């Protein structure tokens, strides 16, 4: 088989060369047989946050009168990794029946839904190039797109390398076709003004350190607002759980910004919008909590002994019913004028030009000055509060520390672009590790109480006794996990406040101090 990197296999027809004309010209050069000609539709799928693309997969769903199949291609080599007949493209992983597809997509896609990025209608021609024995020695797949230039793809046949090379040269030199990358997705997305990886839940805010703090902070809020807006439709439609998650993260970051970046924007604005975003946080929290329980359900099941796994099915049903109800209510609220108008006001406010002479004390500082000062201060607080925690401290103390760490994390992420990339990434990573243990501790605490509450609520629903027994085991397991996290805390905190880490934070945010 010829090496794809050496021989051009993928071509684009010049705009002025119609397919019929191309076929006629090809026929003059070699003996061909068109084995099929049909109307087809090529659809590309990925999750909203491009999980497949990031993992190096291209997901094609090809439909025609005779076929309907999913093809997973390797983006780099353009080779099919998997091809399977499929009548309809499902949205979530659980809806796939084919085990091979599930196996391949599951670690990448997780809970995210697949959505159609683009649909390309085209006329496809399967052309066989024949030798004097009428044996096919190479195939050409011709795709005549409605909205994009036609493409020709050489499909080599094992053992007929010379023929493949000859046809490749013929298409390049004699027929003057242009060599292209096989995947047409980028060209199709360009038609929509889009490009791959144009959404990520990770913040990527580029800031100029000398920017005025008020202008820069408005820019940060605008980026966050963008994330709120793009996740809104998926949250309302409940396409998958992560739209709401990303929506909430953007809301939380905005709230954190409004409370952390003090005396930069006018106090009345800050106060009123803080209230609005707090409300947004509050109306979205129940649905998210239920989403998390449902996402964690397989973990719950795995902690139970084999003969009790079935016993918690009523809990799943209970959660699902409530999730559906909460989600519906939330969707209603996100369509209400209360939400829409206020968000519009926020957007308009962010677009307003900055005051020439702002009254707020910190508005005219550079954003770098604000960032250094704020991060350093919150970091010091984390150290102080962390050191104050001992084995007898109440759970609230750890919870408060977790919240402070979140604030620190958000600040570092907002201002990431102004610092040395490797150093700040390392500092964020060490914080993240520390946050993990606080997260585990707090999640166990919350889930434990929630399970007890669910148990109370389920008593009126004729729930079988074994369900309560199973839930009791889950509570016990959560308590054990929380206990372990507690024991782990001091070690993790010592790691976080190690001399090297402290020196790193100092170097990053307090060199001048």
């Amino acid at each position, binding site marked *: 088989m010829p090496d794809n990197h050496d021989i051009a296999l993928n071509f684009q027809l010049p705009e002025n060369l119609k397919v019929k004309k191309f076929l006629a010209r090809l026929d003059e050069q070699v003996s061909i047989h068109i084995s099929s000609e049909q109307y087809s539709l090529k659809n590309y799928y990925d999750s909203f946050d491009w999980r497949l693309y990031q993992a190096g997969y291209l997901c094609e769903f090809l439909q025609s009168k005779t076929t309907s199949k999913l093809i997973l291609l390797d983006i780099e080599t353009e080779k099919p990794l998997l091809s399977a007949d499929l009548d309809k493209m499902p949205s979530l992983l659980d809806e796939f029946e084919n085990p091979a597809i599930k196996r391949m997509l599951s670690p990448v896609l997780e809970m995210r839904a697949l959505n159609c990025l683009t649909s390309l209608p085209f006329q496809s021609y399967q052309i*066989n190039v024949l030798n004097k*024995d*009428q*044996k*096919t020695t190479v195939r050409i797949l011709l795709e005549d797109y409605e909205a994009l230039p036609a493409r020709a793809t050489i499909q080599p*046949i*094992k*053992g*007929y390398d010379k023929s493949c090379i000859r046809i490749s040269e013929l298409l390049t030199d004699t027929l003057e076709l242009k060599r292209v990358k096989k995947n047409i997705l980028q060209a199709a997305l360009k038609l929509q003004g889009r490009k791959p990886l144009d959404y990520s839940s990770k913040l990527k805010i580029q800031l100029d350190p000398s920017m005025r703090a008020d202008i820069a902070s408005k820019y940060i809020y605008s980026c966050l607002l963008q994330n709120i807006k793009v996740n809104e439709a998926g949250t309302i439609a409940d396409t998958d759980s992560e739209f709401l998650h990303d929506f909430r993260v953007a809301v939380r970051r905005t709230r954190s910004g409004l409370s952390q970046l003090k005396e930069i924007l006018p106090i009345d604005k800050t106060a009123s919008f803080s209230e609005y975003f707090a409300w947004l946080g509050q109306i979205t929290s129940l649905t998210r909590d239920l989403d998390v329980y449902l996402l964690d359900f397989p973990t719950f099941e795995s902690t139970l002994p084999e003969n009790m796994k079935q016993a918690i099915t009523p809990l799943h049903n209970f959660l699902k019913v409530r999730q559906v109800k909460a989600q519906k209510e939330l969707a209603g609220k996100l369509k209400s004028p209360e939400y829409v108008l206020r968000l519009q006001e926020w957007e308009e406010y962010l677009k307003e030009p900055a005051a020439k002479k702002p009254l707020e004390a910190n508005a005219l500082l550079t954003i770098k000055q604000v960032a250094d000062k704020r991060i350093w201060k919150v970091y010091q607080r984390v150290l102080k509060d962390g050191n104050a925690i001992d084995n007898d401290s109440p759970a609230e103390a750890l919870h408060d520390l977790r919240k402070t760490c979140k604030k620190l994390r958000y600040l570092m992420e907002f201002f990431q672009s102004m610092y040395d990339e490797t150093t700040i990434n390392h500092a964020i990573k060490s914080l993240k590790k520390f946050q993990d243990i606080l997260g585990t501790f707090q999640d166990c605490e919350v889930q434990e109480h929630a399970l007890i509450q669910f148990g109370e609520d389920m008593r009126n629903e004729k729930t079988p006794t074994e369900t309560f027994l199973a839930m009791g085991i889950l509570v016990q397991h959560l308590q054990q996990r929380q206990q372990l996290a507690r024991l782990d805390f001091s070690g993790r905190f010592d790691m976080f406040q190690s001399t090297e880490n402290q020196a790193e934070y100092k170097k990053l945010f307090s060199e001048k101090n």
Partner: protein
Amino acid sequence: MTVIAAYSIKGGVGKTSTAVNLAYLAANSGYKTLIWDLDPQGASTFYFRIKPKVKGGSKKLIAGERDLDGLIKGSDFANLDVLPADFSFRNLDLVLDSRKKPKQRLEKLLKPVDKEYDLIVLDCPPNISLLSEAVFAASDILLSPIIPTTLSLRTLEQLKKFIKDNKLEHLKLAPFFSMTDRRKKMHRDIMQSLFDEHPDLLQSAVPYASDIERMGLERMPLGGFINKSRSTDAYQALWRELQDLME
């Protein structure tokens, strides 16, 4: 990977058309299939319109000097590749005899491609020779066409004895009736008595039919030029029985 050898001590019993049509049906049902034409006459190679030529001939092939994968040709049908015959295959016995452990040779040669294919069909020349012994060692199923004549009874018994004497326990013998003519009383009688005496005989019987003869003109498996006929039905039934055997 399963290896099926289309084999008979006798010639002209429909080995090649069986190998070619079964390989086609297997490929069509999604099995990545390779047909290896071991017969120097190169009939199955001819049916796929491929040149009966193997670079370096039988010597280099058996010596393992040529990468098997590099000699394989894609057929005109999806999932179906062909390892063509070469005239030098008439000396395969001699070449094998000059190697150490000649009987294990084919199995060893197939090893590098066993991940690539779900099914390998060996189209073997007639005779019991060193090559056939190497084929028996490499195969899981020995698919043996039998024409319903008295002579065939003898060949089937010879084959069974050979397998028993050589303790080829891994090998499933799958004899089936080939080129049958239901109009002939003798065919009907022999088939009936053989079914009684040899319960291991496959139930499907491939008729003597003009469309099978036409394969030589069309130069492709039956499925390539007719949708449905008694012959295609017979091969389908045979393929289904083989699938059960493979499980």
